């Protein structure tokens, strides 16, 4: 697992060096700080996604949750006039509730995660748009929440607080995933739910917990993102963010078949994706190619990684990952 992460790190360093050579401003403190800020924002919900992916599921409603909860959060503090601390709690509570519902539908009613969260994607987006009548939610002029703003969008010693929050969350999740009993159970459930059940693991609880962690953390991220954009048009806010999250997790070594992945990998995956976005803008590549560059790098990254693995255990079957195909998601 470490070797995989090393490869990714190397890739980031190579890309970074090339960009820095072409445009030295890549390494300017302001650019690094901006990129770090976005790594923090996107990293939070990418980590969240990783938990569900490791459990063998998928969470497609990330973008819609970010839109809906962002709208709710801003509405609560800007219009309803709730104290922001209360609003944070409310928003995270809603996130946890959503995770619970997703988890229950997946486990107790045996629905496929893809279907459940696809419906979530549609429904939450619809509610967000209906809630604001398609209008943009934002603060009135001069409306200001100094503490909240400092906490979410401020910087200390040039380090954005979103990045700090991300680092802390990543550390906690790394311990949970790689050292705790829950993490071990999660891997077991992701690998083979039936065998896990026969070993006495309450697999339903583990799976539900994965969705709760995912949606709760996404709710937390939605607050940072809302405070970053400070305005949310419910029709487009967070569109495709689930794809970013999944891409970061997959680049970072999570398998969509479940049971595989590491926090460090996801962190590196997020960094790579954000550096790529930064690169497109810094090198003056037409932004229309932004998507293509991202897709190309993910493809090459995953491919190179697999070929490396296959090369190391050379002599193996041509399939780099000779898992039984029934497991192909």
């Amino acid at each position, binding site marked *: 697992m470490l070797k995989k992460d090393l490869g990714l790190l190397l890739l980031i360093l190579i890309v970074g060096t090339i960009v820095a050579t072409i445009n030295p401003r890549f390494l300017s403190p302001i650019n690094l700080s901006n990129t770090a800020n976005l790594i923090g924002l996107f990293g939070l919900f990418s980590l969240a996604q990783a938990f569900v992916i490791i459990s063998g599921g998928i969470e497609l409603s990330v973008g819609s949750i970010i839109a809906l909860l962002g709208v709710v959060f801003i509405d609560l503090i800007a219009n309803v006039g709730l104290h922001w601390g209360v609003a944070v709690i409310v928003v995270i509570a809603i996130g946890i509730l959503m995770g619970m519902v997703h988890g229950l539908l997946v486990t107790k009613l045996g629905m496929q995660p893809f279907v459940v969260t696809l419906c979530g994607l549609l429904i939450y987006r619809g509610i967000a748009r209906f809630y604001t009548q398609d209008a943009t939610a934002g603060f009135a002029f001069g409306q200001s929440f100094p503490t909240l703003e400092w906490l979410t969008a401020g910087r200390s010693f040039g380090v954005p607080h979103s990045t700090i929050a991300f680092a802390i969350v990543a550390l906690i999740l790394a311990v949970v995933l790689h050292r705790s009993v829950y993490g071990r159970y999660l891997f077991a459930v992701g690998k083979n739910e*039936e065998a896990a059940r026969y070993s006495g693991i309450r697999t339903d609880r583990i799976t539900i917990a994965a969705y709760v962690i995912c949606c709760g953390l996404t709710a937390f991220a939605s607050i940072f993102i809302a405070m970053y954009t400070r305005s949310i048009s419910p029709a487009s806010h967070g569109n495709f963010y689930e794809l970013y999250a999944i891409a970061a997790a997959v680049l970072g070594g999570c398998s969509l078949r479940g049971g595989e992945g590491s926090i460090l990998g996801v962190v590196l995956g997020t960094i790579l994706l954000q550096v790529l976005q930064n690169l497109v803008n810094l090198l003056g590549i037409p932004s229309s190619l932004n998507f293509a560059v991202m897709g190309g790098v993910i493809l090459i990254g995953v491919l190179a990684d697999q070929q490396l693995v296959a090369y190391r255990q050379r002599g193996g079957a041509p399939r780099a990952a000779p898992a039984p195909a029934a497991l192909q998601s």
Partner: protein
Amino acid sequence: MLDLVGISKTYPGVVALDRVDFSVAPGEVVGLIGENGAGKSTLMKILGGVVAPTSGAIQLDGRGYQALTVGDAIAGGIAFVHQELNLFENLDVAGNVLIGREPLWGGPLRLMDRAAMIAQVQPILARLGADFAPDAPLAELSLAQMQLVEIAKALALDARLVILDEPTSSLTLSETERLLRVIAELKAGGVGIVFISHRLHEVERCCDRVVVLRDGRVVGTLVGARIQHEEMIRLMIGRDLRSLYIPPQSPPGSVMLEIDGVRTAAFPERSVSLTVRRGEIVGLAGLVGAGRTELARAVFGIDKMLAGKLRLDGGDVAINSARDAIDQGLYLVPEDRKRSGVLIDMSIASNISLPDLAADARAFLIDTAAEADRAESQKRSLGIRAPGVATPVKSLSGGNQQKVVLAKWLAMRPRALIFDEPTRGIDVGAKGEIYALMRQLADGGVAIIMISSDMEEVIGVSDRIVVMHEGAVSGHLARADFSEQNVLLLAVGKTIAAERAAAGSAA
């Protein structure tokens, strides 16, 4: 007809086969035996084109190959019944039997001829004595029935060489009987057969020649009259084996596990009641699909019981999940190892610690050193063959995987244990060890139910036999009345005179 010369196969860290020579002639039944992990399946997979050898040459009908592909093997008339099932749950029986060789019509459109398929499969099923129709959905069959489908698949091929890798591991006596008859017919028709089994009496009965593998090498070949139990065992494990039955140290104690009127989804209108005492090994026999596995799953909390009660040590217990059962000290060794028994991608240590991870954890964080220690001691006491406890279970042979499942439970404190086909695919040496372990547990006061379709095992190991027929208990047998005849009569739903007496003494 087929010659393998100097075949070697190495996996990272394992030499699975070491310069093995092997041949089959038309009309010959070759037995292939050896301990778990000896390399039997690997050799056959090379024959079937599933695995490529590291070195060596293959001669098939005079043509030389470096490695066969599945296509080559099928074209060369080799049919292969794999040790693990390879079936499609979304197709019906006929679709499974004829997969890859469907009768066609419509020329280039390549449409399937359903009627021809049914017509083609029907006689094969009849020949095997299967009790299900060609158009039955596969998902509704039990494991043993599926194994029959797997065999039917090989028969449908009209092969010149049939490889049977432990075809009888979950078959009961009567089906095994039929299979042996079918083998004899094939042999008479000039078909070559490779027969792998850990049930040596079957090997004894049907093989012309027996090749014994140990640690990837051929250690001996027995022909004709020399094919005998003792001889085979000595070659396989390099020593003699004790008899199966180890008498208990003391008579059974008070009732430990009481299953009272339990109904399961397979036979919702029938209920099962049975009791097991401390220190007793109760064999649960029955024909394919008698409902034993369903009962075990329900008792262990995997499936919901439709009705009924469970008592452990005299007290009512409510079991709604496997966790509840485990917390009560009631464990199950499941029938389908690959699917339910182990997590094949995880290490031996993680598998063993899984049900009782809390014991190896401090404040929710796993103490990996303690975990490895515990796994290490289990590995040693059960003789699991692996480079280390960090080895993924995936790379172990079937028998050693089964030992990992056992190790999982033995690392805890069982009160009652249900073994569902505990020695399915386990070699004789390891079988002996497992039986001894079961007895040791029983003597320590554990109540044991052993579900088994291996008549030798049921009769050899149990202190008492309970027979099931179509979802209900059809009779009890005390040791004095043990015989294949009696078990079979009860299994098909008949009663016997001795049964009443046994019931009187056992209840």
